[in-house]
């Protein structure tokens, strides 16, 4: 026996024995998971970077492709809906939406982030099957790394949006900026909660990822992204109106528009948008906590189901 080994034994002797099974308690379990994830934040960062780097690695234009999709959608909606269907406000058509391009791009930017997190997050556990079966790291890392890489894509889109507002001479100022961080926070928390649950369920039932793709596509039309809230308001009332507005993504999209769509009239928003966003955030945080508990429950059998 030598010094290194004696030191090691002495060091080990004072450490407590740890069960490999994480405690199932609601609060204690969450605390342990959060600490575990925090301890692996460097890995989280590296995995997010891997997602970004690997996706467009061998293409000539590389990262540009992640922006091409939302820009193409912007063009399609702007031309088809704005020009042909007459949604845009132009001289002689006063009931249209002013600065329609900015309006759509505000909503699209928010939606693209949501769609990325939910779609890619759902497949994240299955996509990392090789790692899950061979190494133990807190498995929340995989959906969370998707959130990280989606946020980077989002940052670039956001930059384009901000530059566009400045170019059109309608740069948002003052209290408008209050809505943006709140809406973004709601978006990330809510989408992350969905991604956690869906990624875990998808391991057991692979149909989920196809179902989610369709649901995301359909739900795109359930939020006022290409049409405005003022077009919906007269057509829904009572329970329907409340249902429409209780969609967290509707709140988020409205929050984004409130910030970046400077030309928008006050009538384009429901009253008390700030208060409702705050409420949605509180609910989303509870959902995120529940989602983590569900994930912790389901992840125990990941390695054998994959």
């Amino acid at each position, binding site marked *: 026996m030598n010094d290194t080994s004696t030191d*090691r034994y002495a060091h080990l002797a004072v450490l407590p024995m740890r*069960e490999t099974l994480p405690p199932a308690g609601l609060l204690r379990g969450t605390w342990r998971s959060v600490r575990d994830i925090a301890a692996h934040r460097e890995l989280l960062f590296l995995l997010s970077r891997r997602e970004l780097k690997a996706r467009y690695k061998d293409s000539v234009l590389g990262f540009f492709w992640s922006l091409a999709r939302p820009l193409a959608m912007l063009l399609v909606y702007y031309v088809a809906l704005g020009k042909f269907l007459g949604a845009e406000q132009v001289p002689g058509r006063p009931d249209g939406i002013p600065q329609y391009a900015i309006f759509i791009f505000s909503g699209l930017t928010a939606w693209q982030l949501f769609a990325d997190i939910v779609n890619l997050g759902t497949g994240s556990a299955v996509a990392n099957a090789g790692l899950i*079966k061979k190494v133990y790291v807190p498995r929340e890392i995989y959906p969370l790394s998707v959130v990280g890489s989606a946020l980077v894509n989002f940052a670039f889109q956001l930059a384009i949006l901000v530059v566009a507002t400045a170019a059109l001479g309608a740069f948002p100022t003052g209290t408008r900026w209050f809505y943006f961080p709140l809406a973004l926070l709601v978006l990330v928390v809510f989408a992350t909660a969905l991604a956690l649950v869906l990624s875990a369920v998808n391991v057991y039932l692979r149909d989920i990822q196809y179902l989610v793709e369709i649901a995301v596509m359909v739900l795109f039309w359930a939020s006022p992204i290409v049409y405005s809230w003022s077009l919906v308001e007269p057509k829904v009332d009572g329970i329907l109106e409340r249902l429409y507005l209780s969609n967290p993504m509707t709140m988020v999209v409205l929050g984004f528009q409130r910030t970046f769509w400077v030309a928008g009239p006050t009538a384009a928003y429901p009253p008390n948008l700030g208060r409702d966003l705050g409420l949605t955030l509180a609910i989303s945080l509870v959902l995120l906590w529940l989602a983590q508990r569900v994930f912790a429950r389901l992840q125990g059998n990941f390695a054998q189901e994959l």
Partner: protein
Amino acid sequence: MPVNVIEIRGLSKRFVIRKEKSLKERLVNFGRSNLHKDDFWALRDIDLDIAAGSTIGLVGPNGSGKSTLLKMIGGILQPTSGVVRTRGRLAALLELGAGFHPDLTGRENVYLNASILGLTRQQTDLYFDAIVDFSGIERFIDTQVKFYSSGMYVRLAFAVAVHVDPDVLLVDEVLAVGDEPFQRKCMDRIRSFQHEGRTIVLVSHSLDQVAMLCDRAVVLDAGVVKADGDTIDALRVLRDEFEATRRDDVERALSVTESGDEGTVASPWEARPRTEVTAVTVTTGDSEGTDATFAPGTDVSVAVDVTTGSPLEDWFLGIAVNDHLGQPVYGTNTRLLGVALPRVTEHARFRFYLPSLMLGEGDYTVDAAVSLATGLEVHRAVAAARLVSRTMGHSVGPVHAEAEFTVVSDGVSSGPSVETGAGRRATTR
């Protein structure tokens, strides 16, 4: 006395084998889903304590639960019942390069893989040069790993793995990779791990590797511990088991061919008389038996008794001498000796003479085997006799030689060389 780093109590693992996966299948079979399930116990009621600083080998036939046990220690699988408790930093090396992304460069993958294995960024920065140096692929470190040869891939992966700093290392069949010089480097690294008091839990099918590295072995079979203890004893249990399995296979194969000739299919489990080596007797000087002690240079003879139920034709007989790890050090057979064996109907005895056998100090076992001309080994009596070589202790290794030593030139005095070894000849007889 080192503390335990791993404690396993009443550990069981059940796998449910489902035969359906999609939503449609589940809905269609809803309520009847138990019909589509099969239970499989991969581990049953395992108790195991592993002390710090030990190197322990988990061995057993395929499907015996070795890898499952390792994954449960690593927290990758969760137990159906029972607990696993660990302490200290634990690194699982179940697959080399788990998490390597083909599109990333070697450098990026080193950082990613090191992080997966639990190194911080600063630590990786610190070890990076050492890792690249160990892998020996400096020139390609900024190339995407999809362009690597499989050898380069595992070298880089192994280099990362051995630079993590765990108290407990779990290893599954990945110890020796690459070409021979690199394998030697791997083994040296493992030895220095042992020297530093790290605990290694090793799953391997290479019994020689286990015998060489481990101070304890656990034999698993069908999810239960068959033997646990000293490596050599545990491996002997496993080798006997393998021999029994192999023999069953041979019997089955023989009965199928025989019945095929007659045009009927006989049950392979039908009791039939066996051909076997019933006894091996060693004679050294005046001692005779299944256990004999001798000094190198003594004449040794090995007598082999063969019994057969059906006539034995066109066959040959062989013996092997193995060291205490089960590694063969000497072997011969009647085919190599150019001797044709007579037809044996019931019982026969044969004898091999090994004049002045020069075996080094140690315990040896003797195997004897009956084989057919096709090369099929019908029966092998494993470790049927024991030979113990006693020397004066002037040498190590399985070969004995009467060594002498002289100083030819001492490099200082220019005069005639001084022979210090003369007259100090070491003799063991």
